[in-house]
């Protein structure tokens, strides 16, 4: 069978346009990969071959009728399981939505499919996107294709792993505090969090409404730019989606960074060195600065003095919004309902106690507490003030710079169970990504090479100004080209070989 897993999204689309292979074959190739690998990786919670082959047939029929294939024609995609798509269950990695069938389509998913993409399946995730390891999925964890003993990051761990393992060309994740960029860094993939409001949130099950943003994973900056082309833009169904005009982001890739102003964030919060990689990760940023300087960018240092309050503010605002957003999972209208309730309160309490996992319950309790009478000002009110300061920090930084650099994470992929007992150590994984969600800027994680002591991927985070995705991706592509990262994990190569792949 044809193995198309090494092709970029554009190559898939162009191959179909040229008649080298069909969209049907692209879908078959993806499912063959999944067959070979997903028993080990567990990136998918649900495969949707009916939808994928129906989409492939439409692409092939249109091409047969002489139409020019759309930009993502025949491109296999994975979709995080918190995004609605009719014909699928949308479980959010939770027992409480184990039987929930989508009744409408998420706008971003719809737009991706309208561009010709093939929906291969729904990807595993931390329950309701609470987590940084995908260990909080009610349906078992996803494993990192670089090392099956290690986590893929989270919460979009399944989306990241599906791309890293070559099962799909692109996937969609959602990023509330780093849930695209962190797993991107940990799996050696490119993960983009667009500016808040750039992509409609309609149809992604809300975690933190003021923080959530849908974005793509790919093996290259060019691929995520193509995906952004498809999903970006205002949506009448999301009042926080922006009317800001959409650019052709894929056109920015390859324009170079001559004259671009690149700021290195020098005062990101200090963290303990848990795996001996911290220095090497810090060094990623210095080497990146040299790279940008060599490519003709102006490089300088910048500080974000309030960013150190980001984690604390985030763990008030995120859970506060989540506690509210998750109230609707009450067993009344859909989802899992406790059996034989004695009254409505019993129905609520037992449905929720039985349906939610421990991290979800922790976040609901945190958020409920932070919003309670008498505590609101001390917690939620203070957190909002910190958020305002962080916004001001970024605004000031972008007066002088076009792109800011930080590591994506303070460490590489860790082993299962390593942090499960200590939520704070887990939360620290997102310490560099969280301030960006609080400010609402766009940011992307690009593979920065492998850590010498573990052999695991490291990520560079590039942060852009509001709605400056073109500039951001331009810088990311230039860096990517200079780094020459090979996105195929050696393990995947050997697994596919061992299982009779081509």
């Amino acid at each position: 069978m044809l193995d198309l897993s090494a092709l970029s999204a554009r190559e898939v689309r162009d191959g179909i346009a040229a008649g080298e292979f069909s969209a049907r074959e692209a879908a078959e190739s993806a499912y063959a990969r999944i067959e070979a690998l997903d028993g080990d990786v567990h990136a998918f919670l649900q495969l949707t071959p009916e939808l994928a082959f129906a989409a492939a047939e439409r692409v092939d029929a249109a091409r047969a009728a002489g139409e020019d294939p759309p930009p993502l024609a025949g491109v296999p995609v994975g979709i995080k399981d918190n995004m609605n798509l009719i014909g699928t269950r949308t479980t959010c990695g939770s027992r409480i939505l184990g039987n929930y069938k989508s009744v409408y389509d998420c706008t971003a998913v719809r737009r991706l499919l309208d561009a010709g993409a093939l929906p291969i399946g729904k990807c595993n995730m931390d329950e309701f996107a609470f987590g940084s390891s995908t260990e909080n999925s009610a349906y078992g964890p996803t494993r990192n294709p670089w090392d099956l003993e290690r986590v893929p990051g989270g919460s979009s761990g399944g989306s990241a792993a599906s791309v890293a393992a070559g099962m799909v060309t692109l996937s969609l994740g959602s990023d509330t505090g780093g849930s695209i960029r962190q797993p991107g860094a940990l799996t050696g993939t490119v993960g983009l969090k667009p500016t808040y409001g750039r992509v409609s949130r309609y149809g992604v099950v809300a975690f933190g409404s003021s923080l959530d943003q849908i974005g793509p994973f790919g093996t290259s900056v060019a691929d995520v730019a193509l995906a952004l082309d498809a999903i970006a833009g205002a949506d009448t169904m999301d009042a926080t989606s922006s009317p800001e005009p959409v650019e052709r982001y894929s056109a920015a890739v390859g324009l170079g960074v001559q004259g671009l102003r690149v700021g290195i964030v020098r005062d990101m919060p200090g963290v303990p060195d848990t795996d001996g990689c911290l220095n090497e990760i810090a060094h990623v940023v210095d080497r990146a600065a040299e790279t940008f300087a060599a490519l003709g960018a102006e490089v300088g240092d910048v500080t974000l003095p309030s960013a150190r309050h980001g984690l604390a503010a985030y763990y008030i605002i995120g859970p506060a919004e989540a506690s509210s957003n998750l109230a609707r999972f009450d067993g009344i209208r859909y989802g899992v309902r406790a059996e034989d309730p004695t009254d409505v309160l019993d129905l609520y309490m037992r449905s929720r106690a039985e349906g939610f996992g421990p991290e979800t319950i922790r976040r609901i309790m945190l958020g409920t507490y932070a919003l309670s009478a008498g505590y609101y000002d001390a917690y939620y009110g203070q957190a909002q003030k910190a958020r305002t300061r962080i916004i001001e920090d970024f605004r000031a930084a972008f007066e002088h710079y076009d792109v800011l650099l930080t590591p994506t994470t303070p460490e590489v992929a860790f082993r299962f169970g390593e942090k499960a007992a200590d939520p704070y150590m887990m939360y620290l994984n997102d310490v560099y990504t969280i301030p960006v969600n609080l400010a609402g800027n766009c940011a992307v994680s690009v593979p920065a090479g492998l850590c010498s002591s573990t052999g695991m991927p490291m990520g560079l985070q590039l942060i852009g100004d509001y709605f400056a995705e073109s500039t951001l991706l331009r810088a990311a592509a230039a860096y990517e080209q200079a780094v020459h990262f090979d996105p195929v994990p050696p393990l995947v190569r050997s697994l596919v070989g061992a299982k009779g792949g081509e």
Partner: protein
Amino acid sequence: MPKDRLAEVLERYEAVIGLEIHTEVTATNTKMFCGCPVAFGGEPNTRVCPVCLGMPGALPVPNEAAIEWTLLAGLATNCDIALWSQFHRKQYFYPDMPKDYQISQYDLPFASGGALEVEVDGEGVAQRIDFGGAVAAVGPEAHPEDGGYRATIGITRIHLEEDTGKMIHVGGSEGRIAGATHSLVDFNRAGTPLMELVSEPDIRTPEEARRFAQKLRSIWLALGVSDCSMEEGSMRVDGNVSIRPRGETELGTKSEVKNMNSFKALHDALAYEIVRQAELLDTGGRVVQETRHWDAGARRTSALRSKEEAHDYRYFPEPDMVPFRFEPAWIASLAEKLPELPDARRERYTTDFDLPKHDASMLSADFALACYFEDAVALAGVDRAKQIANWMLGELAALLNAEAIEIGDTRVTPAMLAEMVGLIEEGAISGKQAKEVFADMAATGDAPGAIVAARGMKQVSDTDAIESVVHGVLEANPNEVASYRAGKTGVMGFFVGAVMREMRGQGNPQVINEVLRRMLGG
């Protein structure tokens, strides 16, 4: 409860009443945060979508028209409009609320700080005993022309929120939750834009409360913001009431009264509650803060919840929407869109149409009635306004009352009423005939001209024709003619009746009288 019991209680206690009035913005056609239609009833759960069902991932998009209507409502009630406003989430679990939070407003309502003046006259005046020394600024102002008075009632705020669904409890008595085996939920109403107006506790009597609510309804109807049906629940009034001994400044413990489905129910429930609280205090008891349910059948309130739950709604700014900023110039342009409001209309009716104050008040208070009246006057002419008003407040009101219908549902159109008044004024039919014509119009919807023609009802005013009938009647009744001429003028009625019978009711009574008097005298 005897009427004088309330007056007696109010001599010793002062009642402090504040109202919370929820009005569905039915003018918008679509729900507050989605495109589902706003309508009463319907097959359960048919006017719903992922947004108003709170499905996972669905997002609210604010209905700008509903916000504009709310701002207009604020302007019409003398409120300040917030230049900066936003929605909050009010959080509590209940099965009629799909998201388990209600999108409402908290510390930044769209409108605040307004006031309305209410007029109390008639029997309602007896409920208020304290206007003697009161000042005009706030509080009642003596209004001696008709023994009534005016009171200014402050409006704390008007905010916008989404309505809940409806619960139907099955298996218990009268659909109450007590004893129910299970409950059904209908989300057709969920997400309907709902304006909540909170009054200041400036109301002192049940009659003032009723007048305030009625006044508000007439303003909402004039704006067109809502159909304001208390029966169908598109206007719902809750009352907070406490009492304190006269002279006391500290507030008493209040109870909240719900489930008043008419203005009369509002009045009676508050009156009941005031007397109930007084009886408690008089017998050494104390009032418990609680929510009470008005039972219109039993004419009493009963405790809805024995213990007031301590709610912590955990309000926080709705993150799915951006805050609203309104330019003062835009608000000014909105104010220019305000239609004529009931007070101004009443003034115009007394000055332009020369209507008595009572008629003007009655016709201007109800927007539909006012529109009907003005349509009819436009066709009949200003000099017939009083006649139009008489027919509307007489026959037409009686008809609406008897058939329990709204003015828009009657077959008698303003054009038909104008035509009928014209026929009377021209002498074509008598007032008595007109009553028959009116009844016929109401039953058939036929135009008065057609009815008059079909019934051969034309009034005969021709003197020659009447003289010949009178001649015949006088000849046939020589004894009565003799008595009249002997001075028993009381038999005049007999002659008129006889002539009218001969003419099958079509003779012009004035002409008949005239001719009879002349011929009998001769």
